[in-house]
Structures are given as structure tokens and as C-alpha cells.
């Protein structure tokens, strides 16, 4: 049984102009100890997905349908009180803005002890011992516990937030752009640490990022999101080496690669559709160089084309040929917005 199973989850936002279908029916599952990367551009719904899973959402967000099974039970149906029990004990989060996720007017120690005493049923002494252990685990000096968050550097803060996420031995950790704001060297170290900690503690992880280079090296599985939907899902290697969806192919062209100085960058023309009134067919239709009439009318479902490798696209045969075409600039110039 999978540890986390998200089924057709929808998270919508109520806005002044109408309902924004930010996350529109996404499904994925995650086994104990494995990891998945949700990759996509801003506004594709990856952060909203996480908020929906743990149900800590802005007041104008709501979940019209979907199921989220954690350890076999549907947590979307559980009461807020039970949900609160689940948060941090079983599912913890390393947020996007780690810098701002600690309360500036309390010491780090205060915030560690609070979680462990209230949620972990430890007494103060035990909690303090545990806090020191956690700091050691992420490579921070335990003296730093007595400091205020603003006295930490970006990397230190990120480590402290990771330590806090591990405080109650959760089974699942969700990291939202965990290294985006950091310098490359620190970024590199934190990613490696996350990977080691995960193996050491047998944690499952959902990682959210816009940067395919980051998931390439940290996650077993990758799900590529576009405009509120998962368009492609598979093992890391499958998705990055042999993409099935034209969007993934295009996305790969957008990243410069330090090892390939001659690689030419190719942009994807246009921008994602307005999710308040999305078009009926494939949401990538307008920007897709291989779009067909069918794509405009009908929405392609996510289908398994190779073992464990799924794509939501009507291109289901001869994908190699398209993949090669997608590497050429001319292909993408044909798209007229």
C-alpha cells in the first residue's frame, strides 16, 4: 500500500473574477521511503497541491473534489482536529520561504520546544535533548538554538527548518522549493544532506521545484505539472532522458547545461492559459508545436505508454521522432501565438 495516494485532487481559488482552477484533478502516489518531484513553472499549481494535501489553505481556497489517502485513510474527510494531529507528526513541511517560516520574535529553541512539547508529548528536558540531536543531524552547532532566526544565515536557517521538520519523526516530508533562494554551494550541500537524511531515516519526500536540475539529482520519480494538471509522470531518468510530453521536451530545451556549452536554448512561445476560464481541450494546446485538431477539442488523459511512464498527450506512437524534432529551434518557431 502506498504511503500517500492523491486521487483526482482539485484545489480551486475563489477570486474577484471567478474561480481559478489552480489544481485540477491530479493523481500520484508515493511509497514509504521514496521520493517524487513535482516540477513546473510558477502558477502551475504545485504549491497549491501541497496546501491542499495538508489542508492549510488561504481562506479563498476550497477543494471541490478529490481524495488524499495517507496510510490508507482519506485525510480530506477527516476532521480538522484529526488533521492537526497528523500535521508534523506524520507529514511535515519545509516551506518555500524557509527564511520567513520561523517567528522572528522567539528564539529558535523556543519554537523547537513548542512543537516537541505540544505535539510530541516530550517534557522540556527530553525536548531539549532532541533539539540538540536534530541540530547535530543537520550539521548545526547546538549553541545556535539560543539565537533568534534573523541571526542565522540563509543556509543555516534552511538547515534549522529541515531539522524542525524532522522533529517528530514524520513519515513524509514535503519540501517546497527548498533551495531556491540559496547560493549554489549551500544549495548543493543542502540537497545532499536531504538525500542522506532521507535514506538514513527512511523518509518519503515530495519535492516541489521549478528547476529540473534539482529534481534530476534528488528524486526517484518526477511529475511534470502544467496549468494545474500533471502532464507527465515517471521515473526520473525516464522523464528527463526520454520525455513523452511536448511540454517536458520544451522545458528541457530551456535550461542551459554547464556541461554542454554548445547547447542552444529554445523558448516555448506564449504563456499558460488563464485558469479562471481554461480552454476545453489540452491546456498546452496553444503553445504546442505538435498540436492537432483533436487536442483543441478533447482533453488527453494521463496514460501509461511505457512501464511506469505516463503522459497526458495524444501523441502515443513514434515519440522518438517528435523528441528529435523538439530539439530543433525551427519546430518551436512554428508556434504562433
Amino acid at each position: 500500500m502506498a504511503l500517500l495516494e492523491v486521487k483526482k485532487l482539485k484545489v480551486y481559488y475563489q477570486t474577484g473574477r471567478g474561480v481559478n482552477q489552480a489544481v485540477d484533478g491530479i493523481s500520484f502516489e508515493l511509497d514509504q521511503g521514496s521520493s517524487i518531484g513535482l516540477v513546473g513553472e510558477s502558477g502551475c499549481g504545485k504549491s497549491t497541491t501541497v496546501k491542499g494535501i495538508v489542508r492549510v489553505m488561504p481562506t479563498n481556497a476550497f477543494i471541490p473534489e478529490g481524495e488524499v489517502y495517507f496510510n490508507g485513510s482519506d485525510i480530506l474527510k477527516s476532521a480538522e482536529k484529526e488533521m492537526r494531529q497528523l500535521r508534523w507528526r506524520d507529514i511535515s513541511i519545509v516551506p518555500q520561504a524557509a527564511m520567513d517560516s520561523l517567528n522572528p520574535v522567539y528564539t529558535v529553541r523556543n519554537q523547537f520546544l513548542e512543537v516537541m512539547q505540544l505535539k510530541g508529548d516530550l517534557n522540556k528536558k527530553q525536548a531539549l535533548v532532541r533539539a540538540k540531536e536534530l541540530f547535530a543531524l543537520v550539521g548545526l552547532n547546538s549553541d545556535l538554538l539560543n539565537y533568534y532566526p534573523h541571526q542565522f544565515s540563509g543556509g543555516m536557517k534552511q538547515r534549522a527548518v529541515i531539522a524542525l521538520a524532522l522533529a517528530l519523526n514524520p513519515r513524509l516530508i514535503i519540501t517546497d522549493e527548498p533551495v531556491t533562494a540559496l547560493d549554489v554551494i549551500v544549495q548543493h550541500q543542502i540537497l545532499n544532506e536531504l538525500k542522506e537524511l532521507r535514506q538514513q531515516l527512511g523518509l518519503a519526500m515530495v519535492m516541489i521545484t521549478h528547476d529540473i536540475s534539482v529534481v534530476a539529482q534528488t528524486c526517484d520519480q518526477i511529475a511534470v505539472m502544467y496549468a494545474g494538471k500533471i502532464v507527465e509522470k515517471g521515473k526520473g531518468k525516464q522523464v528527463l532522458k526520454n520525455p513523452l510530453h511536448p511540454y517536458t521536451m520544451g522545458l528541457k530545451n530551456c535550461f542551459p547545461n554547464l556541461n554542454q556549452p554548445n547547447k542552444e536554448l529554445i523558448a516555448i512561445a506564449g504563456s499558460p492559459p488563464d485558469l479562471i476560464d481554461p480552454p476545453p481541450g489540452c491546456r498546452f494546446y496553444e503553445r504546442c508545436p505538435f498540436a492537432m485538431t483533436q487536442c483543441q477539442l478533447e482533453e488527453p488523459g494521463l496514460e501509461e505508454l511505457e512501464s511506469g511512464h505516463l503522459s497526458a498527450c495524444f501523441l502515443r506512437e513514434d515519440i522518438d521522432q517528435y523528441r528529435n524534432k523538439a530539439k530543433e529551434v525551427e519546430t518551436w518557431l512554428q508556434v504562433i501565438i
Partner: protein
Amino acid sequence: MATSDYIIELHQAKKFFPIRPKLFRRSGSDDYLKAVNGVSFKLKQGESLGLAGESGCGKTTTGKILLKLCAMTGGSYFFKGRDITTLTAKEEIKSFRKQAQLIFQNPYDALNPRFTIYRSLLEPLIIHNLGTQQERRDMIRAVMERVNLKPAETFFEKYPHQMSGGQLQRVVLARALIVDPAFIVADEPVSMLDVSVRAGVLNLMKEITEKMDLTTVYISHDLSLIQYMCDYTAIMYLGKIVELGPSRELIAAPIHPYTKALISAVPIPDPDVANEAVNISNNVPSPINLPPGCIFQDRCPVVTQLCRQEEPVFSEVAAGHRVACHQAET
């Protein structure tokens, strides 16, 4: 004054910020944040240089110095053979402003929210008194088409909040180009844009600067981007350039231990490439009171006694490739 071969000649540029003394702390004489501490390079027409480094290394301040947006604490800066630091006459400053332009990191913030796109592009023409009414309209149309905002008229009356990030960055580029500059500084030009849009803006900038033979300085934390865009790369650390050379050479065969560490830390979008170990510590010393010797001594894996006593000279190891490291000299 004789014109020089070089568009940009920056020599030992320094910018120190005084640290405000605290009420109950005795203030030492050395309380300066040395944001830029002796940066030198020269650029010929059409050449491009990328300034890379971690946050706080002084790359953005260097960019500001190049645009005369902040006064230098020390050093000299010649632009087309003219000493820029001593410019005082309003007309001369204006003429420099016409030739040196800036592309911003945040396109959402770089345009006046109360101006239409047309008005934003008209401003530089009014300020520098270029063209007649009709000519101005044609110039604006031409420059917008040049940055692929076609048909230009459909954008004239739009406000910045009605446009996407990629389109805005094109407008910003157009605003820089409309006065026909010789030199452009681009400060993290795409870091605020979505990945799929970045490539378009980068390619456009590359194409235009090459076609117009513009001298450019790119400031970025992203080495892969700099390699893609620039002829030369300079790696900055704590206000100094530690290594400068032709981009591909520098990235393929880095010499300075800091450059090596930086390059090995860059994530590669390829699951087959094994993730190299970075072997330097992550404590960046404060740029306020630095010890004597090499600025990298505390983090360097190959540090020697010499490094703790003497500052290495920034010297040439190959044609156009300079490094500030004692190990590189032998």
C-alpha cells in the same frame, strides 16, 4: 582626449559602505563593508563579460559602479577613454547616461506602473531630446519590433500590469536600446521570469547585442547562463575578482579553488551525471573585518602558510585568463 581601444576600463574599483556605529559599541576605524574591493577589467567593443558569484560578493555593486549609479571609494573608471569619475558637467553626465544602459532583474518593477508602454519608451527620447513627434513614434515602433513585440501598436496603450513578465523584459530591453547605447549592464535579467520564457529573452538579448556590437556585462549567480551568454567570465568573491577568463576555458578548466567549488556545485539537468562533492566549508567570512592574506583562506582546501600572510596577485596564467591564487603561480 584620445579614444581608447577599450569601451570599459575599470581599475582597482572600490566601494566601501560605512557601518553605522552602534550606540553602545565602540567603533573601530575599520568599520566598513567592503562591497567592492579592487576590481579591474577591460572590455573592447562588442565583448561581453559575466560577473558571477554568491550573494554579497559585490557583483551588483560593481554593476552600479559601471553605470555611475554609485560613487566609487577608490580606483578609476574610463568609459571610451574618458574618466567617468570626474564627470561633473550636466551635459557630459547626460551623454554618458545615453550610452550606458541597464536591464533590470525585476521587469515587473522596472516600468512605471502609471505609464503606458508607449510613454515609458518615449521618456528617454524626451530626456535626451531625440527626434521629432513623428520620428519618435517611428523610433518606438521600430525598437518594439526589434524586440519582437509585434505588432507594436497593440502594445502602445497597455500598462505594465497588463503584460507578462517576458513581454515586460522585452520592453525594458527596448527602452535601453532606443537611445542607441554602446554599453549595457544586465543584472540577473531573467531570474524573475518563468523558465519557459527565459530562453526567449536570453536569445533575443544575445542576438541584439551581437548585431549591434554592444559591449555588455551580465550579472548572474547562474554560471550556466553566463557561459551561454558571455565571452568572458569573472568569478567574484568578497568584493574581488578571483578568476577571470574566456568563459568556456574557465568553466572547462577552472584554476582557482573557489571557481572549482562553484562549478562542481552547479546542478546539472541530467540524472546520469553524478553529483560531485564540493569540498569547501560554507562559512563565508564577514566582509567587514578581513584578516590579512588571501580572502579565501578560511574556506580553501589547499591553503598554505603563505596564503595566510600574503595576498595573491591577480596575474595572467594564459592569454586573457587571470587568477588570484598562490597555487596558480607556480
